[in-house]
C-alpha cells in the first residue's frame, strides 16, 4: 500500500496569498484531495490545492524535502 506525498496549499480568503499549509500521504490524486480537505479543516478555505511533492521543481535550493523528493523520483 504505497502512498505518495502530496503538499497542500490553500488561501483563506479571496485576495489572500496561497500558502503551504501541510501535506498528506495518499494513494492517488483523488484520495489526496479528500485527505487534504478532511485533514486541514481548521479553516473555511477559499481555495485549496494539492500537488505531488515530486512535481515541485526547486529553483534555488538543491537540498531540502522538495529537492530530496525530486531527486529520489527522477534521479
Amino acid at each position, binding site marked *: *500500500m*504505497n502512498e505518495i*506525498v502530496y503538499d497542500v496549499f490553500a488561501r483563506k480568503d479571496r485576495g489572500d496569498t496561497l500558502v*503551504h*499549509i*501541510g*501535506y*498528506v*500521504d495518499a*494513494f492517488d490524486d483523488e484520495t489526496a484531495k479528500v485527505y487534504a480537505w*478532511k*485533514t*486541514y479543516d*481548521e479553516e473555511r478555505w477559499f481555495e485549496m490545492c494539492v500537488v505531488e511533492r515530486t512535481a515541485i521543481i526547486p529553483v534555488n535550493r538543491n*537540498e*531540502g*524535502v522538495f529537492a*530530496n523528493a525530486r531527486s529520489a523520483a527522477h534521479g
Partner: protein
Amino acid sequence: MSPFTEEELIEKVQSGYMVEGPEDMTEGYRKALRVQLTVQADTELMSAPSYWMAARYAPSTNTQVSAHAIIQDELAHANIAYRLLEDIGESKEKLVYGRQPHEFKHPYGFDQPLDNWADLVVANGFFDRAGITLLSDVYQNTSYAPLKRALVKIDMEETFHLRHGEVWMRRLSKAGGEAKEMVQRSVDWMFPMTIEWFGLPDDLKRHSGQLDYKLKGLTNDQLRQVWMDSTVPLCKELGLDVPAHWDEEKQEYVLDYPFPCQYDASEKRWAFDEGEITWDDVFERWKGRGPMNEIYVESVQRSRMDVRRWLDGKAA
C-alpha cells in the same frame, strides 16, 4: 551531512537559527527531534482509540459529532507528526504498523480505559490541556521550522478539544448529585495521571538535549506548573477537589500527596496512603503499560494485514 558540529548548531539555534530539514541537522539534533516527534505522534495516535471507545457514551447525536470531530483531529495530528518523522528519515509504516503495543511512546494515561462520558470530558479537559501546554511551549520555542508551522493548526484544534472538555465538566458539575460525583471520580484518577505525564522532576532529569537544541523551552516542572495554573483554579471554581494548592510562600502550586506514587490500574485508584515511590518504580509501571495498551494498538493496526492480503501486493 550537517555543515555544523554539535556545539555550533547548539549555539546557532540558541541565537534564533531555524532548522529547515535534515540537511541542517547534526546527528544529535536529529535523534532528539526524533524522540520528541515520536512521543508527539504516538500520543495523538493513541488518543484516537481511547476517545473513540469512549465516544459511545456520548449522550446525544450532537455530542457524538463533537466527540468524533475530536477523534478526527487527533488522527490528522498524528498523520502530520508521522509525516514530519518521514521527512527526517523514519518510516511511518514501521512506526504505526511495525511496532508492538509496548513499543509506542505515548503517556501511560492513554493506556487507561475511559469508562463513561465524565471520563471522556475530563480527559479532554486534563489530557488535552496537557497537550496544549506541551505543544504551545514547543510552538513558541522550537528551532525546527516544519514543526512550528504544523503546530498552528494543531494548537487551534486542541483548543477546541479543551473547550469541549471544560464546557462539559462545568455542565456536569453544576448539575450536582450523581453528575458531579462522576466528574469528581474522573478527576480523582486523572489529575495525578496528568501530573505524572510531565515526567521526571527537574532535579532528577537526565540530560536529553531538547532544551540545548531548543526543541522546547520550559522544563518538566515548569510545564507541570503551567498546567496546574489553569487546571486547579478551574476545578476550584467548579467545586471539584484536587490534591494540589497554591503556596503563597513558594509562589507555586504544591501537591498534597506523595509524588510520585503507585497506581492501581484495575481500581483506577492512586495509592496515596502507601507513600512515595521512586521514579524507577514509575518507569517500571510505564514499561509494563496499562490495561488498554494492546487493545488500543490492535484497533489501529488490525486491518492493515488483512487488506494488504486482499490487495495481493497491488497498491491500494
